[in-house]
């Protein structure tokens, strides 16, 4: 692991930005820089899943990554004009639930890990998910919810996606609150979790298989 990754794992913003600036100054390939920063972020995710880091550290690592990326991205555009994203994820909190926090964390982490994220916001009706899938053609749909009552709503939303003939085109992941504790077979999703980093890892695995 390089200095940049190590500094991200240490959550040391000054060291991260210092390493990025030094890399840019010495003409290091900006793709290499961003990948190294991502490696650090992934490592933070692993530590989170092991219970050594907590949600606050996960969020902090993403914030530092974003600052680093804001320095690196203009260089990438200069050198490569365009960058391929890992995939496209449509995400939203389901109808009847206005909780934003968990969804916001997952959306931020996905962006940092190189995904294009379309964040629909909170309290999103089933038909809006359907329409937005048609509009954006994502590979993955993420639904969030904190309330116990959001679980059947997630099932209804999947059903609406099925009825629109779109279910075969997307993987569906649900997360938040007690979602990971409930059997998901009834609601027809591909994965359910209460752990933000596990969700990111599952989505990355899906994209690798595509």
């Amino acid at each position, binding site marked *: 692991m390089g200095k940049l990754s190590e500094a991200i794992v240490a*959550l040391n913003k000054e060291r991260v930005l210092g390493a990025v600036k030094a890399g840019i100054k010495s003409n290091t390939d900006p793709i290499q820089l961003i990948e190294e920063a991502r490696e650090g972020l992934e490592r933070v995710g692993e530590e989170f899943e092991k*219970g050594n880091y*907590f949600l*606050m*550290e996960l969020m902090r690592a993403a914030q530092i990554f974003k600052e680093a990326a804001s320095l690196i991205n203009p260089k990438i555009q200069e050198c490569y004009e365009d960058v391929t994203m890992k995939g496209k994820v449509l995400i939203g909190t389901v109808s*009847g639930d206005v909780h934003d*926090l968990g969804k916001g964390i997952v959306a931020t982490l996905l962006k940092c890990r190189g995904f294009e994220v379309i964040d629909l916001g909170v309290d999103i009706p089933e038909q809006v998910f359907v329409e937005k899938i048609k509009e954006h053609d994502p590979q993955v749909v993420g639904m969030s919810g904190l*309330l*116990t009552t959001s679980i059947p709503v997630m099932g209804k939303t999947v059903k609406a996606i099925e009825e629109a003939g779109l279910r075969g085109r997307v993987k569906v992941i649900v997360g938040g609150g007690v979602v990971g504790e409930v059997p998901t077979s009834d609601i027809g999703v591909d994965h359910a979790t209460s752990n933000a980093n596990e969700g990111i890892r599952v989505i990355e695995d899906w994209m690798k298989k595509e």
Partner: protein
Amino acid sequence: MKESLSRYERIEAAWNLEEADRVPVSPLNCYILAYQGGISIREMFHEPEKFTEAVVKAREKIGEGDQEDPNITTLDHLSLRPKSGWDQVTLDWRIWDQFPPEGNIPSFFEKCIIEDYDDVMERGFSTLLFNKKIGKDVFNRSLEDFLYYEFEYPEIYAKAWRKFVEEHEVPLIMGGRATIPFELVLYYRGFAKFVQDIFEQPDKVKDMCEFVLEHEILNALKQAMIMGAGEVPGAEKIFFQAGVVGPPYISPEVFEEFVWPTLKKGVDMIVKRGFKAHVHTDGDMTPVLPVLKDITKGLPKGKVLLDFEKTDMKKAKEVLGDKVCIWGNVPASLLCYGTPTEVEEYCQKLINDCAEGGGFILATECETPWNAKPENVRVMIDSAIKYGQY
């Protein structure tokens, strides 16, 4: 089976770390009381007598726990007291007529309300209370409306609950409610900005937590006095909410540095003024149990309870058993989606792990969801009788 103690005596024995006739049981019932009692959320929030009548009906369906939560939220949610309040600031206060799917229950309101800590510390909480982001309706309400909810409604509310307690001999879970400053500030600021603050301006966060504390506790004590503390059993208890203050949200180090000082100080303030502190936690507090061991330091016995959500209860009993009464933790998901047999097995294990020697109340993790299966809540209450005899 004949019960030799009153509900309040049973609860008090647990707080005092003594064995009662049996393990007390107290699901933290909130919206389920209105739902199973057949009233709307609007009625729950505006018609106290109808609400307490609904509680009686609900208890027939979901079983009779040893206490009920009077939902202090509804005591002064439309009052204009200068409270910093979790209720005022962090909830999306749409009061619905119906439960889902036609309506909903009030939910968290997650957005950045505090732009500048210094401004709030200098000018006080009115800057929050009159913030248009959170109090749009404040500007549309009539003077009569203000006066009613400020002075009359809380009294009507407390009177209805006093009547309920006296007629049914069911004590209250709480008389007032406060929130730990760390959590309040987190919600005021929004999670992303708050995380940044913890790392970039930690002293400002600590100052703000100190600033919030006294105001928050005193407001809760005032609520408890209105509810009849000293006369109405249970009204002397302050529900001190410490939600997202432990793993997996924050590390034990952040807990110790940022949360613990005001948590301990708040508990001391409550107890030293003659009240009792029911500290409600979410998440898994297992890694910080050694710190929580000092929660009763310098305080008389029987004044503090720790309420756990995902914490390892067996471990909590081991670490805290001789210090403080523990409360928990039948999972919300089990009450909604599990079977009565699964709930019964869970309760039996909890009782086996935690009941010995007293100091344990069988309860829900966080609250009983409004859509919990009535038969599951009932089996929880029956389990205390079946497995919890001392």
